[in-house]
């Protein structure tokens, strides 16, 4: 399996302090990679760094050639303003193809077809003309994933994706992500608090508290002290 992102001894941070210190990790093709940690532990900084919005202040970050070409699909945390945004599902999904277009002012046939394909894959094609703000939380999340898939086909970065979803929608969401990961071979990197659901799915766990607390498989993580504390009574 080839490596998509390799970090060795990377620091990420802002002007005068580093939020992430001495991080060594690797995201490979087909990985289901989970980042956990308390609030303010540097998770969001790490996401920004991986997306290329923040350059590392130290160490080396290598992003695979193919990933640099197509970019990384990104599912940001939802903002309050989006909840009542007047936009059709099609408009939102199509905006994911923006980076493929370069400096052309309008979308081509090909990009429109791609948006259609993405909506079909996520089972939201019949919602195409519906208004984003009228959808349920789970449906909105599918729309945003379709948009991310338009932007990139190899890897998705999800930032706290299940916040604000009801339990049923959360289960549906994990099933969908698992499907994308296993059947379509898309590498997943997810930042989440929801440990109970994640341990069974991921193949790599990174526990961050500024520096790396744990990095390895979920099975090992369950045996460490940090893991047991973080999992609460989840697995005892």
């Amino acid at each position, binding site marked *: 399996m080839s490596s998509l992102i390799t970090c060795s001894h990377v620091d990420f941070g802002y002007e005068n302090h580093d939020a992430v210190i001495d991080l060594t990790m690797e995201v490979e093709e087909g990985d289901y990679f989970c980042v956990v940690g308390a609030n303010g532990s540097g998770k969001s900084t790490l996401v920004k760094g991986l*997306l*290329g*919005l923040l350059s590392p202040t130290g160490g080396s970050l290598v992003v695979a050639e193919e990933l640099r070409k197509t*970019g*990384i699909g*990104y599912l*940001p*945390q939802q*903002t309050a*303003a*989006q909840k009542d*945004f*007047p*936009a*059709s599902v099609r*408009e*939102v999904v*199509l*905006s*994911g193809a*923006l*980076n493929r*277009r370069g400096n052309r*002012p*309008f*979308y081509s046939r090909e990009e429109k077809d791609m948006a259609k394909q993405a909506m079909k894959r996520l089972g939201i094609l019949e919602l195409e003309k*519906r*208004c984003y*703000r*009228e959808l349920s939380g789970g449906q909105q999340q599918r729309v945003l994933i379709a*948009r*991310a898939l338009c*932007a990139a086909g190899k890897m998705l970065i999800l930032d706290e994706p299940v916040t604000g979803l009801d339990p049923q929608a959360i289960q549906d969401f994990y099933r969908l992500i698992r499907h994308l990961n296993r059947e379509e071979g898309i590498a997943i990197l997810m930042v989440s608090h929801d440990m109970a659901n994640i341990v069974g799915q991921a193949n790599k766990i990174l526990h961050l508290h500024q520096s790396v607390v744990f990095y390895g498989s979920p099975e090992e993580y369950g045996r460490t002290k940090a893991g047991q504390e973080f999992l609460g009574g989840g697995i005892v």
Partner: protein
Amino acid sequence: MKMIGEMLSYPFLVRALAGGILISLCAALLGVSLVLKRYSMIGDGLSHVSFGALSIAVAMGWAPLAVSVPVVVLAAFFLLRITENGKIKSDAAIAMISAGSLAAGIVVTSLTTGMTTDVSSYMFGSILAMSPWDVRLSAALSAVVLALFVFCYDRVFAVTFDESFARATGVNVSAYNVIIAVLTAITIVLGMQMMGAMMISSLIIFPALTSMQVFKSFRAVVWSSGIVAVICFCLGMAASYRFSTPAGASVVLANLGAFAAFWAAQRIGAFLAGKHK
């Protein structure tokens, strides 16, 4: 019909109509993005800064536009920064800046010339304020705003809908924010002489809010805002001419009427849809 012919026989009214239509259009288009990004307060803040700058310029005998355009553009940068930072309570900060510049304008004016008609017309607007030069500037401004919305439409959408995602896909979000803020600043300075500092921000906020009542896609909201703004402006001007009411206030009332009409249409639509089910 006769009234329209009569109105068009006054050159100052033709200028006011031409300039006003162009400015309403710009304000409405920029307003869609500002309202949806929760930046409506910036429009309001800028109009007060613009009042302060204009009245100080008048008191000092400087050219009003040459002073206030740069000052308001700077204020736009600044307001955008505090809103983006989110650390300071941005709504409170904007309120502070608004009241501060309003007060500065009033004090400087009363110390020098006294409250002249100029200042009062900046406050409540004057139909006579549009000079031929202002109309030319408004035309240039709307050319830029329309170009932005035609050629960069999808990027404007992406930046408005989701800044983080747009940034991750390589859109220069900060540049777009700055462009929108600067264009808004110029729109406000040009428009407030006619609409008045107290009312110019309604041109930014009303059309977008009105259109959002009924339309469900971004494209439809943008089109509708532009059209509603132009129609309301013309109705307001006609009413102002017919009943000799202040132009700015009449336009705002026309916008309020449109908002009420769209709201009612939305409620009736929802009611009928409910019945069908």
